[in-house]
């Protein structure tokens, strides 16, 4: 689940007819159905959202307010509404596996070289690769429901995900804590190939949006001490038409959203 796709909600009064229900009553639910439900909760067809991203490091703390447009897994545009003087108006355009940045101070667009995909996006604890990765955990990993337990006062399933042999992933293992009532993730832990915890993502402020329950706040804790990045969704327009033109490179080059 990439950062941008996470908010690409598809708000409808009713869930798609073929979507499995959340198996809240089962201690050991069918994991394939469960993962399908969870991903459907977090992914959708299109969205327009306003969010603020707070970044905390040992040397600085700052917040950037952004607007996001997305369409499916392949297209997304983020524009900085409020940030530092040189970054207000900055835009990041994702088209399939590629990223372009519009740099307001320079007034130019620069394509991100593939070698810099692992670098931080806007100084946050998300990488450029987090923005681009469109694959689903259910596709790349084999999931197992390990147990049922209490997490932060909520009944939850503990799911472990191991990469499939041919999966293109940097993680050696992922742990997922799913809320039994809603199937929404409460926490996600990413481990590297050596089994060390590389980062942890907490989901909170669960909110009912149409038929979905959705976490309005994501907090990323990297392994590095004293750092964290929090994304808080302030508003969302869901299931709205987003013009294909929004994701045009030409528009980006003109500095228009």
């Amino acid at each position, binding site marked *: 689940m990439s950062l941008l796709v996470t908010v690409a909600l598809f708000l409808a009064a009713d869930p798609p007819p073929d979507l499995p229900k959340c198996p809240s009553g089962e201690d050991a639910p069918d994991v394939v159905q469960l993962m399908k439900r969870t991903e459907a909760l977090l992914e959708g067809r299109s969205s327009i959202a306003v969010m603020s991203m707070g970044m905390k490091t040992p*040397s600085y703390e*700052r917040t950037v307010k952004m607007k996001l447009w997305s369409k499916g897994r392949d297209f997304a545009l983020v524009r900085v509404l409020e*940030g530092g003087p040189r*970054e207000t108006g900055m835009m990041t355009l994702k088209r399939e596996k590629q990223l372009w940045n519009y740099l307001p*101070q320079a007034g*130019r667009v620069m*394509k991100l070289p593939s070698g*810099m995909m692992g670098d*931080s996006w806007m100084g946050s604890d998300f990488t450029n690769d987090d923005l681009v990765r469109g694959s689903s955990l259910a596709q790349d990993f084999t999931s197992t429901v390990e147990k049922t337990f209490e997490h932060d006062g909520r009944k939850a399933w503990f799911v472990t995900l191991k990469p499939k042999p041919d999966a293109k992933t940097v993680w050696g293992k992922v742990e997922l804590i799913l809320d039994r009532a809603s199937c929404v993730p409460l926490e996600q832990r990413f481990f590297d190939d050596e089994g060390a915890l590389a980062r942890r993502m907490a989901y909170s402020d669960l909110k009912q949006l149409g038929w979905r329950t959705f976490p309005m706040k994501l907090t990323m804790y990297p392994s590095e001490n004293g750092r964290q990045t929090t994304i808080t969704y302030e508003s969302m327009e869901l299931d709205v038409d987003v013009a294909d033109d929004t994701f045009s490179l030409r528009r980006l080059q003109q500095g228009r959203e």
Partner: protein
Amino acid sequence: MLFAIAWRNVWRNARRSIITMSALALGVAGIVTLFSYREVANEAIVADLTAGLVGHMQVHALGYQEAPAIGLTVENPVQVEAALRGALPGATSERRVIGAGLAGSGDRSSPVMVLGVEPGVSNLYTLEAGHPPGAKEVLVGRALADDLGVKPADELVLVSQGKDGSVANDRYTVAGTFVSSSAELDGNAVVLPLAEAQSFFALGEGVHQLVVRLPLQKEDVTPETAALRNALDLETLEALSWAEMLPQMKASIDNKRKNQGFVDFIIFVIVGLGVFNAMTMAVFERTRELGVLGALGTRPRRVLAMVLLEALWQGALAFAVGVAVAAAVLYGIGTVDLSSMLGGDVMGVKMPSHLELKLLPGSLKGAAVTAFFTAIVGALLPALRAMRLEPVEALRHT
């Protein structure tokens, strides 16, 4: 008198003495030439490093050398510079800002090193085309300019992250291209005037490196580094010598010296055996004569001295000839281009392209020790034998 006799003895068998002295002279010439060549090269490499990229020493924020980060800056360079001038009279310093970024021009982009230097102070680079950078202008390493396809007057966009975490981005005009003593700089660096770089990275007055240069060129700056450390607040700052910053380069120089010691020893053993052989023969041929000297009451000690002096005369002659040969070789070759060897680049440091060979006085010490020591050690056993001869038996010797 003993010197004269020893001198005369050298020429009693002139052919043998000349052969022995030739071997000694060649050994001396080899040692002097190799030493001078190596040290001239070392001196040039160290001079390049200290005058350019690294300086004799550098002052950073504590921990910068271990893990460079854009936020680790020397906040008050003016104060630190005052302290370092007090500790090291005559020393100069250069402020630098170094960060990583992304440079783009047209459709091309490349990860780069963004370098802010004091215009007119830094001799990190040599302008190849264009003019020194002014406001909103940059210089681009020649190889990087080729990669990005930029030339003077073209536009270059830089992106990075500021110290405050914000997205640093701006558009500059390429003032020119440069070459430097570092292959890494030529291939990766974009040079900005210091103030431009400080504002790009949102550093205020802060700098990443204060490059310190001593008034006199020298290789071992351990005492100066200690003096500098005494003058600084080591809670927030670190001071490192060039050898501490480039430990591999230092180790490579030290290793070459160690290897030279080994080569000197081999030469010493081979030449010493030659002297030993020649002197053994000389003493053997003169057994009866030595017996006569003994019978006439010459003290054994004087006999010992006479034989040793004969070897020393040869050593002295060989030393003079050897040094002359070495000088002829060194000045005959004149200049050497190290940059065409080893791909011209050792550990990211380009080798000097114009190396003026000369005979270094420092080489004479090792060569003199080798020549005289070899002569004495080679002659010692035959001389002791001559000293211990019983006159009566020696006289009977046929």
